């Protein structure tokens, strides 16, 4: 990659602590969003490139949970059954991706380096809003490709150490970001997952209950959206679930997710539509 064993002058120049800005200046071809598609390729990419589907996130007192199904689709074909779509962004935040998987995974990699790079150069961690804004910029750089059918729509969530709460950020293809209260979903099955979360979410969930909520919501997404994968009981493939608290982020072990998923499936054997939300008007609560 470097022909000269010496450090190039650009490396020694004081300046930006943003890795993507440095790449844009020094090695723009390494940026995922710098390629342009040939004219006339409109929307063709949508059926050629695998797409990731549904991501859900919800907060609970003291943290948050983000979970993603495991399916990637390519038109009507299932491209991959065990894709991972939720990644740690740094110690206190996670990012989940929906949209063109190849570009999205590359964007997440760039985002992870971006946060770590800032931390090392500046000696301090970016604020949660700062991280969310950096992700906006990366998505915006992909706008050209998004217009040609290769959109990446991530979701970002992290534990805000200053405020002591979990926070969730949603994005649109132009990089616009909006903070969500309580819960959020993205991807093709997101409306079904959101419907389920609306009825099941409460302010006082425990961590374990919040994980169950995410798995229930993904089940409902898979129930009604063909591109979202439900729990695969024959191959034992279950959603990837990340939990972030004041102690940092961690992946919920596969075994623990499998146990919850088995119980959810058990419940659905008796009532395929899932738990019943009480039919009250809310006035008597």
């Amino acid at each position: 990659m470097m022909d000269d064993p010496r450090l190039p002058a650009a490396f020694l120049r004081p300046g930006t602590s943003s890795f993507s800005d440095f790449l844009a200046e020094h090695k723009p071809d390494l940026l995922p969003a710098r390629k342009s598609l040939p004219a006339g390729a409109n929307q063709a990419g949508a059926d050629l490139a695998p797409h990731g589907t549904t991501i859900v996130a919800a907060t609970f007192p003291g943290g948050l949970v983000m979970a993603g199904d495991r399916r990637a689709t390519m038109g009507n074909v299932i491209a991959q059954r065990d894709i991972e779509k939720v990644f740690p962004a740094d110690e206190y935040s996670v990012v989940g991706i929906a949209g063109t998987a190849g570009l999205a995974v590359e964007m997440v990699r760039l985002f992870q380096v971006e946060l770590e790079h800032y931390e090392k150069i500046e000696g301090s961690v970016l604020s949660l809003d700062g991280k969310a804004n950096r992700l906006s910029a990366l998505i915006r750089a992909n706008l050209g490709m998004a217009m040609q059918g290769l959109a990446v729509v991530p979701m970002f969530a992290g534990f805000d150490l200053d405020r002591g709460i979990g926070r969730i950020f949603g994005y649109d293809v132009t990089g616009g970001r909006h903070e969500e209260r309580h819960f959020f979903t993205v991807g093709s099955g997101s409306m079904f997952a959101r419907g389920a979360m609306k009825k099941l979410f409460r302010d006082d969930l425990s961590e374990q209950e919040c994980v169950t909520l995410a798995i229930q919501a993904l089940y409902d997404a898979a129930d009604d959206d063909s591109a979202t994968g439900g729990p695969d009981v024959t191959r034992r493939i279950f959603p990837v679930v990340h939990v972030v608290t004041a102690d940092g982020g961690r992946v919920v072990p596969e075994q623990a997710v499998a146990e919850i998923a088995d119980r959810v499936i058990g419940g659905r054997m008796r009532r395929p539509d899932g738990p019943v939300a009480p039919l009250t008007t809310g006035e008597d609560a």
Partner: protein
Amino acid sequence: MSMPFYVSPEQLMKDRADFARKGISRGRSLVAVQYADGVLFVTENPSQALHKVSEIYDRIAFAAVGRYNEFENLRIAGVRLADMRGYAYDRRDVTGRGLANAYAQTLGTIFSSGGEKPYEVEIFVAEIGDAAADDQVYRLTYEGRVADEHGYAVMGGDAETVTAYLQEHYSAGCSLEEALTVAVAALGHSASEDRVIPTSDLEVAVLDRTRTQPRKFARILPARLDTLLGDRGPGRHAAPIPEDGDPGTAASDPVTDAPDDPTDQVSGSVPPLEDPGSGEPPVAPPL
């Protein structure tokens, strides 16, 4: 017509080397010690913000003495190089040897080019492997020389005294507590006395292979240092770094603040970020 003086290349190089060596030896010493679980760095640095030891990548750390602005530049370049290589290839493809090589080439070129002043810095690049036998500590000097160090290594300040102390007291494969105790004692040791350095004046960091995260670098803060070092008696801050009459440091009692003179020692109400003579951060006044 004036004739330029002839300076032999030997003399030129020697002068440049003397200049760099002098700059480096003015600062305080920094020790790198290999212990059972990785590599430990200890230096006396009262500044909590201007670090001499830093993280470069997952398993690679950087430590430097000399002029702060120069080694800070090199550190940032190293972080950029490592992050870019890790992003373009894979995290495992970032190696300490590659980084040490890039630093060596850079320092070597600057040293032998007539146009630039040589960097007054000395650097350690350390990388840990899966076992103690795979750990590497590279020493890079101002003229771009690379050396592979084993066990312990010292640079800056009174390196000979500290090295002699370590030679006597260091044992391979020691625990973190033992390594820290011997390193701190070595830094406080001088021909005349053994000074107890207060933990608030110490900058300590480790590359620790037992950490579960992929990033193995960690700073050890004063609270934990107190626990690790135990009771050592009353601490004493180091004496301020002596001026050596170098013309650049304006040691001859300047009385007024000259804002346009970067080497002036008097500054109105704003203390300088670092001592312009030694490049050391200012020593905090004793409490």
